[in-house]
């Protein structure tokens, strides 16, 4: 019995969401009284791999192969399933990231395992039952899901558990599983990644704006505010539908669901579909000139006022705050 965590690398580095997944997996190993092994695929340096020990991984399986330098879920799933067998793992943890969503289900089928994606809490082990709480109905509810299979796969939502240090000695072991040619049928042609912006799905702070901004030309102050906070930018559905902002920024029921520590909604009335995607944010700030906007009902802080007057004040205050 052991826990295996997949650590997704981007350009040879681990992001915060990876350390969060390792922290979560370590907590499960502690509940079980077992040990935690991490599996890294792609070219990651030894120092970066050693970092995983800080969060509780006592062993790291390092699959450094040129063939596997790009993420192809079919091949990566084969490698992770092999690692799970080798480590006799009965719980496999990964981040519920874009890549994780394509990977977890394949790993689950390979291991004849049940999968909970979008987990928000540690599993509860109660009378032989293994249950995990997950988001459901787009943030309007949680579903307690019991995994009845022998092996369990859990995809953890970003910002749900937090990074927790639990330093252990770490050994790094080279792992060279065989990869079938058919597992590499999907070919990665190009990766385009904006490195100067905070990525929305795992952002801790998010500044979002809606139709109240009147037009795409007015997003300068939103980006300035987000920049000062180190926040990601987001938008409502009408805004992305009108092509004022890219679809990748649309949060809500049919966009992406996020749960940052702080969500600032500017000029968004708060339709039920929008609230569904953001209601699990820890702190919500609403700025709207309509005091009747439904968003105020779920807000922690509210300012009834014109965005074009309020946001510049916030920018000035933030500059002063940062000194």
């Amino acid at each position: 019995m052991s826990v295996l965590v997949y650590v997704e690398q981007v350009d040879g580095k681990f992001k915060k969401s990876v350390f969060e997944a390792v922290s979560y997996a370590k907590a499960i190993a502690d509940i079980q009284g077992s040990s935690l092994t991490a599996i890294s695929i792609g070219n990651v340096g030894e120092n970066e791999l050693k970092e995983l020990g800080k969060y509780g991984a006592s062993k790291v399986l390092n699959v450094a192969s040129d063939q596997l330098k790009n993420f192809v879920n079919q091949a990566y799933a084969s490698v992770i399933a092999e690692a799970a067998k080798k480590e006799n793992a009965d719980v496999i943890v990964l981040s519920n990231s874009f890549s994780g969503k394509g990977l977890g289900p394949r790993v689950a089928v390979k291991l004849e395992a049940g999968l909970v994606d979008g987990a928000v809490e540690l599993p509860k082990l109660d009378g032989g039952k293994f249950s995990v709480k997950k988001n459901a109905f787009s943030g309007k509810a949680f579903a307690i899901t019991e995994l009845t299979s022998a092996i369990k796969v859990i995809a953890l939502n970003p910002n749900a558990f937090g990074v927790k240090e639990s330093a252990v000695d770490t050994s790094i072991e080279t792992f060279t599983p065989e990869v079938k040619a058919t597992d590499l049928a999907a070919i990665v042609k190009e990766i385009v990644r904006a490195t100067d912006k905070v990525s929305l799905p795992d952002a801790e702070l998010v500044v979002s704006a809606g139709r109240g901004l009147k037009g795409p030309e007015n997003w300068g102050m939103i980006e300035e505010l987000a920049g000062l906070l180190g926040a990601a930018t987001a938008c409502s559905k009408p805004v992305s539908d009108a092509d004022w902002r890219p679809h990748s920024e649309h949060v809500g029921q049919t966009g992406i669901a996020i749960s940052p520590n702080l969500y600032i909604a500017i000029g968004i009335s708060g339709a039920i579909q929008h609230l569904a995607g953001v209601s699990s944010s820890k702190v919500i700030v609403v700025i709207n000139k309509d005091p009747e906007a439904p968003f105020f009902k779920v807000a922690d802080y509210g300012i009834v006022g014109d965005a074009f007057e309020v946001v510049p004040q916030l920018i000035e205050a933030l500059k002063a705050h940062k000194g």
Partner: protein
Amino acid sequence: MKILVCISNVPDTTTKITFTNDNTQFNTSGVQFIVNPYDEIALSRAIELCEGGKGTVTVINVGESTTDPTIRKALAIGADDAVRINAAPRDAYFTAYQIAEYAKTTDFDMILCGRESIDYNGSQVAAMVGEFLDIPSISIIKKLDYDGTTATIEREIEGGKEVVSVTGKFVASCAEGTAVATIPNMRGIMSARSKPLQVVEAKEIAQMSQVTKFETPAPRGAVKLIPAESAAELIGLLHTEAKVI
């Protein structure tokens, strides 16, 4: 060309979510069910790719006869025919297995799904179908072009996109951007009634998971209003009181 599109029967996006039987069951009373919005995007792209006699679109749903109206809606949008695997979907593993087993009996070029279902917010079925069939699966795609043999796909990644090329059969789960969901017209609605809907019995497979209880989020406390003229105070409150910046 033949495209299979998986559709899920979900509560309308404006539904007030409540539960019955000591919070163990979703309360379907008075709830309007719809085609999962992301599946509509997948369906719309499939119809576009098959336009001009280039192919046919089959929608596939795992559900009991109560989902037939939702299947008819998909036919009204423009699918050519439909298959319903006759079983209440137990979990994603079960659903994906049924779809894969059906796919094995038919010749198809691609299987499209939505990025997730808006009820259980699972993003599992597409990749599981890919694994059951041992073919590539690309999750959360934003663009799909197909030249008859090779698909060029853009998928979402944190902070950007990745372009993937696949030759041969594949599965993809579609997000916004892949297509604009088509609204059925009167002709579509009329013709949907007479389009074929085949019912296939489900195959047995072990259950991997089950929802045992639902919870609703704790209500938030009352909003703290800050006068617009002293908006700057918000920054201090976020720092000292909420401790998020």
